[in-house]
Structures are given as C-alpha cells and as structure tokens.
C-alpha cells in the first residue's frame, strides 16, 4: 500500500470516528470529541427536565458540524429542502466575491487575532483543544461555554427584546424562548468580523441567526440554525446536525489564554493578507 493510500485510509478512519459530514478537512483532532452518532437515527426517549418542566440541556455536548465548511450541512434554502449537490450558501455578489477571496484574506480570520468565534460556529470548534461544549442552565439563562478562544454565550430565556442596534458584539445578543420542548435562540447585534467556518464563509453585521435545539432523548438533540442576512445572502438558509451528549459527565474545559502568547498573525505573508515578508527572517 503506498503511503498516499495509507494516508487516505487514515483519513477515512478519522472521518468515521468523528462523523464530520461531508467535510474535506477531516482532522485528527476531531477524534477528541465525544463519540459522534453513526448508524440509525436515535429513538425518542425521556429527557432530563428542569423543575419547571422545560428540557434541561446542562452537561457536555458535541454538535457534528464541520469546522472547515459549514455549507456541507445545509438542509434548506429559502425554506425548501436541497439535495447534496445544491448545498451552496446563496451569497449576494459582494459576499460571493468575499468568499472567493478567502485565501488571500486568511489574515482576516478572527481566531488568528484571538477573537471569539461568533455564533453559531463557536459551538463546534472543540476539536482544536480536544475539549467539548459545556452547557449550564437555570430557569432564567442558558450558558454555552467553549474552550477554544474561551467563546461563551449567556442567553436569557425570557424572550426579552434585543439590545440597541449600535452595540455590536462578537457573540451577538442571543435571546431564548421555548416553543414546546424546542429551545429557540435568536441572535442579533453581531459584528461583520467573525467567520462561519475556517474555509472563509462569512456574514455581515446584519446577520440574524435563529437556532433550534429539539430533544430526541436525553443523549441526543437535533440542532438547526437558520441564517438571514440581506447584505450577505439572497435567501435564508438552514443547516442541521445531530447534537450528542458527551460520554463523561465530568469532562472539563480549561482557560484558553490567547493574546498572552499569540505570534501567528505576525507570520502571515502578503499573499494571505498579512505583512510578513516571504523568505524573511524568523519573526518570533
């Protein structure tokens, strides 16, 4: 077996282990996630509930969306189901061009500058540190905690109004409400700085993300997110992915210091949007 074929076999094994759907960037780090579902869909079953009867999502989770390419998970565009070969983000011309320039704009990736990853992609960035998503929940708030970049969202469950428009937040302003057992979170007030994945799919600061977390059984929820952004997209589009409880209820995440030791941004050459000269001295 040639080394190239062996490498492909390794990729195949990694992909199976982490079940990252359709991702061309299957990564060895993905195997650090909680086990991903494989095989038949999970059966409905009882779920942990809060004292007020609402589903309790507290615990450790993994959402099986590709870190590299979010479009691989598109299920609907403009409300209509799409086939696998139609999974393309319906960009406006300006944002299609922005996407096309992703390689030469690699310097603009916010994580390179230690910014938080935005909504919703911060939820599935875990493979980088091998650590998952922790959710804390009480009757008034749900809190999403992630190790990578320390991305964190505190979402009230009150259905209150959003904050004023001039305030732009990396993690936006998320507001949650219940529709039966489905948790619906609407996020506005984002910046145009965060990306949706590492391939360079992006959004403007007009983006509104609506997420739906629907329980199937205590270890499996279904996750959906719909993106509406009149500057970046010609139509709303929706992704869906399984959400699986982690195997270790005491799995931990650690502090993620970033600017304290970050030098990568100094090494980006001009062809990727940086200013490090090609063949220059080590700029550590």
């Amino acid at each position, binding site marked *: 077996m040639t080394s190239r074929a062996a490498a492909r076999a390794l990729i195949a094994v990694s992909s199976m282990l982490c079940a990252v759907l359709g991702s061309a960037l299957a990564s060895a780090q993905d195997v650090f996630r909680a086990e991903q579902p494989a095989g038949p869909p999970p059966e409905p079953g009882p779920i942990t509930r809060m004292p007020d009867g609402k589903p309790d999502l507290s615990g450790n989770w993994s959402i099986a969306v590709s870190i590299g390419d979010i479009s691989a998970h598109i299920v609907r565009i403009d409300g209509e189901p799409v086939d696998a070969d139609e999974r393309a983000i319906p960009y406006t011309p300006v944002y299609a061009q922005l996407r096309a320039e992703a390689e030469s704009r690699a310097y603009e*990736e916010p994580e390179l500058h230690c910014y938080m990853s935005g909504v919703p992609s911060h939820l599935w960035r875990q493979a980088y540190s091998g650590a998952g998503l922790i959710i804390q929940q009480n009757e008034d708030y749900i809190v999403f905690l992630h190790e990578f970049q320390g991305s964190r969202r505190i979402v009230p469950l009150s259905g209150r109004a959003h904050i004023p428009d001039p305030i732009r937040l990396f993690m936006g302003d998320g507001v949650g409400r219940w529709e039966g057992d489905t948790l619906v979170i609407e996020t506005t007030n984002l910046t145009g700085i965060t990306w949706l994945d590492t391939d360079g799919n992006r959004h403007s600061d007009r983006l509104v993300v609506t997420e739906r977390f629907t329980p199937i059984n205590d270890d499996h929820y279904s996750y959906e997110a719909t993106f509406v952004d009149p500057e970046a997209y010609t139509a709303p589009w929706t992704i869906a992915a399984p959400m699986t409880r982690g195997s270790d209820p*005491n799995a931990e995440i650690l502090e993620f210091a970033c600017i304290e030791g970050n030098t990568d941004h100094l090494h980006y050459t001009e062809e990727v949007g940086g200013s490090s000269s090609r063949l220059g001295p080590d700029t550590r």
Partner: protein
Amino acid sequence: MSKTLAAIGGVLLLIAAAESPAHHSVWAEFDRDRPVEIRGRFIEMDWVNPHSWVHFEVTTDDGEKIVWAAETPPPNQLIRQGWRRSDIQPGDEIVVHGYAARNGSLRLWARNVAIVARGGQALPEPKTVLALLDPNPEGIPDGVLPGRR
C-alpha cells in the same frame, strides 16, 4: 527549494499530507505541500497558549548549527494527550514531522514529535510525545485530565 530547507542535514522524507488540523488557517501560515521531517537536539519548550513551541538545534551537513521552532497545539491539548513538561529534556535527540512555514523562516507546524535518543544513547523505541494522528496513546478517557495529584 529555499536555502533554509536545503541547508538541513538529516533525513528529509516526503510524507503525503495526511490531514489538516481543523483550527484557524494553519495552511495560510504553513505549506501542506512541503512536509518535512527534521532531526535535532531539544533546547527548550515554550508551554504557552495558544500554541506551544519546541525549540531544537539542527546540525547541517556543513556542520552549521541552526535553531528551528516547531509549533504545536496548546498545553491544554498536549496535557490531555499525556505530554508532560518533564517528558522531554534539554539535549534529547528528537525527530519532528511537520509542515514548513510559508514565509521561509525556520519554523514548522508539528504533527509528530518523538524522542529517539537521550544522553547519547538511542532509546530502544522512539518515545512519541506529540502525535496528532494518534489521538490517545496512553488510552486516557475523553475529557479526563491526567496527572493531577
């Protein structure tokens, strides 16, 4: 081939680009088409977030000594894989597999780091301290942070 790569002594193998680390654009900074394997003498390590650095001295065919830096995942991840600061000592002979920097500097993104000799004595088996393809060499359960006392 850049002057720096040409100057490296030791074994230089071509390894098919087997995977890409799935975090911020490593490939904007490192070249997945220039995989390298470099052997050198460990100097010190910066155990720092967001990326740790392994500094090692390489002796070229001309006898010149140059210092390379291999960039790794953060300590958070290294510790989860079972790598301890005390596992690697100054003077250890190490072999680093990774991908060369695009800007031509003496840095690489490390995919695998193994100690092959200590105190002038070859180890019976290389001791792997970083292996991004082997997720769990010591069988540590997901989420458990080993080694706390």
